């Protein structure tokens, strides 16, 4: 099957009713950075556009990653729950094509999130800061955009791994908030300096650190790439090694 057809299938499925909740959450997430930026703007003496790009990214980070993981769980989990994955395979969709479609979706959503962050930054700097075009462009950090893309893809792959391996959407939707909360407790304990817990090697924290880093952080980048490789490998074997019995 062509990549165009795979992309069209995922696109049609994207706007189904059960995904609407995620779009509302995303809109909420897009609006909060503007509010936070506006608060900061009021107390700054000489604000410049560059000060706000990373602020927008930071305020989006944790919930953005969580939303990405649970969106993939919900989207792919629906295919398993309704039997549409099984039916697709019976009708001639190959497992490789299905998997490729999900990777395309992860990539598309990562780009969508990054474009949304950029859009919010533009709205904020144009309408609230009233900065000029050169200043706005200077404020955009391309390294951060690359970091965000890898981190978001990492979160999406975490979701894919969970749902393709365990095939349980409900547990997946509950698991990720709990897992991320646990990781951040470990992160806080680690940051407090009392106990070394290597939180930066956890999947969620490594993605978070990469997402919020303005510079090229080789360690976080490598950790996230290793996690992506592991998650995608397990997800793939979760698809090909399992027999598709009736649900």
């Amino acid at each position: 099957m062509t990549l165009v057809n795979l992309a069209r299938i995922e696109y049609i499925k994207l706007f189904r009713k059960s995904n609407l909740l995620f779009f509302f959450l995303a809109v909420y997430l897009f609006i909060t950075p503007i509010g936070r930026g506006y608060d900061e703007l009021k107390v700054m003496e000489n604000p410049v556009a560059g000060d706000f790009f990373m602020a927008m990214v930071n305020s989006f980070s944790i919930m953005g990653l969580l939303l990405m993981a649970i969106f993939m769980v919900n989207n792919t989990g629906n295919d398993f729950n309704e039997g549409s994955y099984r039916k697709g395979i019976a009708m001639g969709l190959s497992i490789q094509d299905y998997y490729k479609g999900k990777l395309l979706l992860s990539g598309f959503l990562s780009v969508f999130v990054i474009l949304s962050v950029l859009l919010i930054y533009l709205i904020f700097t144009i309408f609230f800061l009233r900065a000029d075009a050169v200043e706005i462009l200077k404020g955009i950090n391309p390294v951060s955009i690359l970091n965000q893309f890898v981190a978001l893809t990492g979160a999406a792959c975490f979701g894919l791994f969970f749902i393709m391996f365990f095939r349980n959407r409900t547990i997946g939707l509950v698991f990720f908030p709990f897992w991320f909360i646990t990781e951040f407790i470990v992160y806080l304990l680690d940051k407090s300096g009392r106990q070394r817990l290597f939180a930066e090697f956890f999947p969620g924290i490594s993605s978070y650190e990469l997402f919020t880093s303005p510079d090229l952080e080789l360690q976080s980048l490598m950790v996230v790439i290793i996690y992506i490789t592991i998650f995608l490998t397990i997800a793939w074997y979760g698809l090909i090694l399992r027999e598709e019995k009736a649900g």
Partner: protein
Amino acid sequence: MLVVVFLAKLLRRKMKYHVVHAKNLLKRFDSLTVLDNVSLEIAQGDVFCLLGPNGSGKTTLINCILVLLKPDNGVINIFGNSDLVEAKKRMGVVMEEDGFYRDMNVMKNMQIVCLIKNASFNEIPILLQKLSLWDQRNKMVKKLSQGMRKRLAIACSMVGNPDFLIWDEPYNGLDPTGFQFMRNLISELREQGKTILISTHLLDEVKKTATKTALMHKGKIREVLEVKDISEKYGNMDKFYMHHVPELF
């Protein structure tokens, strides 16, 4: 002209080949043997009905043909091809569970099937009208009745004009008009030279629509017969069934 048509029909009948050729299929779920050395041949143009009580292995056999299950032993060839994934491009399927995207409308479900089958969206109105579903095209699938969902599943199976149709329990949820419609549809598809494999319990429908039937029980194919030969050998369809599945009566 008539002679040419007659010769073409004759040639088509002479050139019948096996669409499905399955040999010695064995499938176990843990210690339970669900398919026990099943061999099956379905010729091109046949309306082949798999009969049998619940749990006899009909759906498992179909799932093996559809590569949803891997047989523990045996081989399956479809259109002479052992690459069943490739062969599925020429097949249409109705599964026991419909597998629709329930919170999407009829049109979008059909569009996804067209994209999987690499077929044009232009087929959708034709098929929906044929299955009397055109007025329901913007309805969510979860709001359709069971019978309508079955019709939609049949419409989906016909996307891309496949040569071989596998319908698992296609009569579930149909009303009397639905049954009549199915009979007409099967006869129309047969005229077009399509091969159909139907799994069902409904003896009456087998009698009215099938050309050949196989009776499965406890994972084995007990007998394969031309439907026209059943009355000669057993008297009627019920007796044929009772002969092989006596414990259920």
